[in-house]
């Protein structure tokens, strides 16, 4: 299945693009996807950080099953550091 991953803020530079399409085996989890994304130590550090936010189809991953969330073909993930503003 194909999962679209969108990056924001400095993750765009860190992961090299605004968005990537990742091919995964059926029933793969969000955790599995993150391990594939972490290709360098810097990327691994950010994806392990407590400031990481992962949204799946517009909801926070923790509202689903966290890293155990089973992905479906066509899911869109948004990955970025916690941001706030005014």
């Amino acid at each position, binding site marked *: 299945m194909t999962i679209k991953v969108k990056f924001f803020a400095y993750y765009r530079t860190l992961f090299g693009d605004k968005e990537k399409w990742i091919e995964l085996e059926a029933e793969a989890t969000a955790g599995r996807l993150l391990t594939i994304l972490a290709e360098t130590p810097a990327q691994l550090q950010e994806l392990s950080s407590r400031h990481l936010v992962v949204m799946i189809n517009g909801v926070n991953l923790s509202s689903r099953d966290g890293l155990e969330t089973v992905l479906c073909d066509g899911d869109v993930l948004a990955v970025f*550091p*916690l*941001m706030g*503003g005014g």
Partner: protein
Amino acid sequence: MSGSAFGFFGRYLEIDLTAGGVRVRPLEAALVADYIGGRGLATRLLYDAVDAACDPLGPENVVAIAVSPLVGTNAPTAARGHMVFKSPLTGLLGTSNSGGGWGFSFKATGYDALVIKGRATEPVWIDITPDKVEILPAARLWGKDIHATTEELTAGFEAGRRPRVLCIGPAGEHLVRYAVVANDKNRVYGRGGPGAVWGSKNLKAVRVAGKEKIQIHDPERYQSGYDQAVYLMRQAPVTKRLLRELGTAGLVELINVIDMLPHRNFQDCVHLDEDLERVSGETIAKTILERAAGCYLCPIGCQRHTRIVRAGSPDQSGEGPEYETVVLMGPDCDIYDLEAITTANYRCNEFGLDTISFGGTVACAMELAEAGLLPADRTRGLDVRFGNAAVLEQLAVDTACRRGLGDLLAEGSYRLGERFGRPDLSMSVKRMEIPAYDPRASLTQALGYMTSPSGACHLRGGYAVSLAFFGGTREIPRFSLLQSPIAIRNMQNMGILQDSLGICRFTGYAFGSDPWSRMLSGVTGMDFSVARFEEIENRIAALERLFNSAAGATPADDVLPPRFADSTIVVAGEARAVTRDAQARMRQDYYQVRGWDAEGRPTAALIESLRIAPPAGRMS
């Protein structure tokens, strides 16, 4: 000055513009213990000085400005001031906060607060130094914009000795209901129309300079809080780099990820990605940003100093646009033209308009025009329709000067809609325009807008956006009726604390109240434990509610406009609205959580337990 001032000097200035008199009043330590400073202190001073039933644009209104015991130290971001007044936009409590550096310079004159009442017969400005306080004629300044006024009053001083200026522009002079008071040119006391209150008093500017210093009672304790704060600010991406790299407009694409970014006067939250990219923080950084900067003592650096270069025209430069401006003067008007938004923003800064209320009012006007309700003789040839970016800059200037259609826009979206029989097309609460987060995408944020003391506000109402959606350290569900009242109460209380401490909201992404507790206790030598903080927050919240009740507010004012109950938006694939039933349930639960009665009034028992004294005698 004699004695040791541990955090506060124990005195404030009281200025009567009618009589032309200046008095120095003592500030009791008990008041600091119960209200701290900033928002808490200014609210208490206002409550004691003003009749809540007064005309906001009449001489009986009062403006109270206060800083906190942390202002004067090197605590991060501790240079902010807070201004409280009766609002000409809402008719209720006006309560506004600003960064820049005026607060710090004001404290250096040797006073803890400034209370201004009455009305000068001619335009005046006030000059405050430790040696003297003068009320001076401002005829030569009246009519000048904020930048020119500031430059004139700071001319001739060497850098490092330059005074700081708080002033209004043409919008305040023309009593625009959402006119701002600005410091450091572009940092504003933005919401609720304090600029119009100043204008109604013929007050143009307050200039401050001095070198008075407060002492720190327990330097080790202060330092432990300081060290912890600075360390944590370097860990959190928001305070470490995100806001410096992208500014608040870095939120544009992220708020769209959660389907919360308003479109066409909050008709929906649907945008094309490629349109939003044109007005994102990234695009600002790549195209018009010259440099980031911070307020005095701030390491976060969210300010955008920008420049627009156009072939064949002179450059334009200034600050911004911020997230709220980008969205409410942008996609909410169906406009995605960054240059048009930015030049209109420059005019708002120079002339002194709140960009949130201006944007929301323009969007309302556009919907009225589309419905055929704005007569041609009112629009005077200006093509006021969704998507017409060319009209923004002209409307900003016309509104500030109350010219043509601008005279109607100057009244705000509610009065504009009401005039043409459609107040329901004003996206506002208590007549204050809603910020750039659709409440249908978060019940918690909806409740925040409903219950903010100042009208719909993400700063006084509680900022539920990040916490609800982006996880972080506290997960608060977006659509929980049960949890929203306590969650928003806690967020509002944190805001009350930050506003009373004179520090910036953004520090809240890095740490909570413990470092502030150590810094404040260390500076003052007084007991400011985290538990005492909670009591103080509840006291200030109750006091604000008491003022609003006295000014005529009822539970019928704690509601959203009909659009948010009657029309849905799609959030993560589901249709969402904030039904009247949901509003009623959350409202009642919120009153209960606050310890207020079913009519939203603090109970006698609560007032007693919080030791909220009745209003003291009026200023004589």
